């Protein structure tokens, strides 16, 4: 499936793209949300990286997964105390989402009704424009998504 694009918004911080993780970002550039799976023991690998945490194999594939997920926990940042590029975006929500096909992914959450940051809220990942070679993703609550 190809991910929908979240229009009119740009991520202020571009992801670092490097050999250990580039399969994920390359997937997003092609409109797919992918996870890394060990070719030897089939363990989904997260955080993305150079080796399987279970069997220490290097071999892996990047496999597209469903974009739907459920909020585990989320917070609203009211004041940017780190990188000030976030200041113009406050308040914004960010948290952790358990994807329908696993794994758990971090991400910002777009929501207008306020319930999208609650535990158990249904969200889906959409593409978000970012500086650099790859787009990013963001989660969108069903209140926006329809």
């Amino acid at each position, binding site marked *: 499936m190809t991910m929908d694009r979240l229009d009119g918004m740009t991520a202020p911080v571009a992801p670092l793209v490097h050999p250990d993780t580039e399969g994920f970002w390359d997937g997003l550039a092609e409109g797919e949300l992918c996870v890394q799976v060990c070719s030897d023991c089939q363990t989904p690998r997260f955080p993305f*990286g150079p080796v399987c945490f279970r069997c220490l194999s290097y071999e892996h594939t990047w496999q597209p997964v469903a974009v739907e997920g459920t909020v*585990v926990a989320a*917070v609203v*940042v*009211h004041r940017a105390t*780190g*990188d000030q590029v976030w200041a113009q975006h406050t308040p914004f929500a*960010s948290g952790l989402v358990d994807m329908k096909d696993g794994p758990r992914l971090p991400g910002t959450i777009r929501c207008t009704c306020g319930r999208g940051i609650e*535990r158990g809220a249904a969200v889906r990942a959409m593409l978000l424009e970012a500086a650099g070679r790859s787009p990013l993703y963001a989660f969108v609550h069903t209140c926006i998504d329809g």
Partner: protein
Amino acid sequence: MGFEHICIAGVGTSEAFGFDLGKSPLRLQVEAFRSALNDAGLTKSDVDGFITAKGAPRGVDYEEFVLAVGIDIRWATQLWAHGRWATNTVLEAAMVIEAGLADVVAIANTSVTGRGYGRHLEALGEGAIHEGLRDMGGGHGENDVHGLDTPGAATALVARSYMERYGATSDELAKIAIGIRANACLNPMAMMREKPLTTETYYAEPLLTDPFRRADYCLASEGATCLILARSDRASDLASSPIRIAAGEGIHASRDDYVMFARPGMAVGISQEAPFVADGARGVFARAGISPGDVDALYVYDSFTSNVWMTLERFGFCGEGEAWQYVADNGLSVGAPLPVNTNGGLLSEAHLLGYGHLVEMVRQLRGEAGPRQVEGASVVQWATARGDSLVLTL
């Protein structure tokens, strides 16, 4: 089964803690070193081992310190700039002495900030710790590209998750900040000693990352500490009562125990949500020959208020999901059944990387804590949400 042959012989700090002390990290560290030597009744030539973590934004390298104070050492360790190593440095110093690799080990640490000393030496810049830039998530659960780029914002996620799961509210979070601030008001060295916190003033401060307000965050401050460890058989040479390390427990880390200020089972970072079951961290009690009920005062790495909940549960001072109620019922003050962070902690004394708590523990055991003295304190414990711990006794 502790370190029977080892003692904490002396402790010391910089002359003050503050947001901008106008002193170099080296100067602050020397102040702490001189103060600890004086406290121990030792001279610098006694010190032949040195352990430090490079402070933020730029602390003191071990060889820079050796040159400055003119000591001749045969053991040095230099750790990553962090408030993480208080337990492990003490245990390492004890092991080094036990193994005969040094006789007297000084553990000295300094923090300065970009807004303080960093302004006087421009090249330091803000000196950010780059842990938060791990692109797959930092040790506190940070994730820069998704806007959780500070330990505070990431730990707010731990607090939020706990509150949703167990029914705690901001009122109970506030009680942690208020209780520890009340202790700071009894500590003449504490930066917040003249700023008592009430429920009203807590809520008057803005939300930074919901549910955290300003008072839920530790101080970003400047200051230094020094602890000196020696063989117990030197006790007769010492100026102060030697303090015994009854037991220790090192830092725990695993895929299920990754986010630093969450106990296991909290479903933050990559760990799955699970009921919390007592883990190996509690082994410290058996090794010290005590139970949690024997602890006269507890010292928690309180970089953020919710760490207190995590630590109380991890070490069994209350059951899973009960810490918020425990704190609401019992408080954390010097007069509470279990006083917590009688120095005012990282929240209200100063961010001394955890070593300020250890200095306070030594003073409590010696009965030197003045208006904040816990009467009859004979067993005090340092513990963190990460699972590391020290039990100190007379």
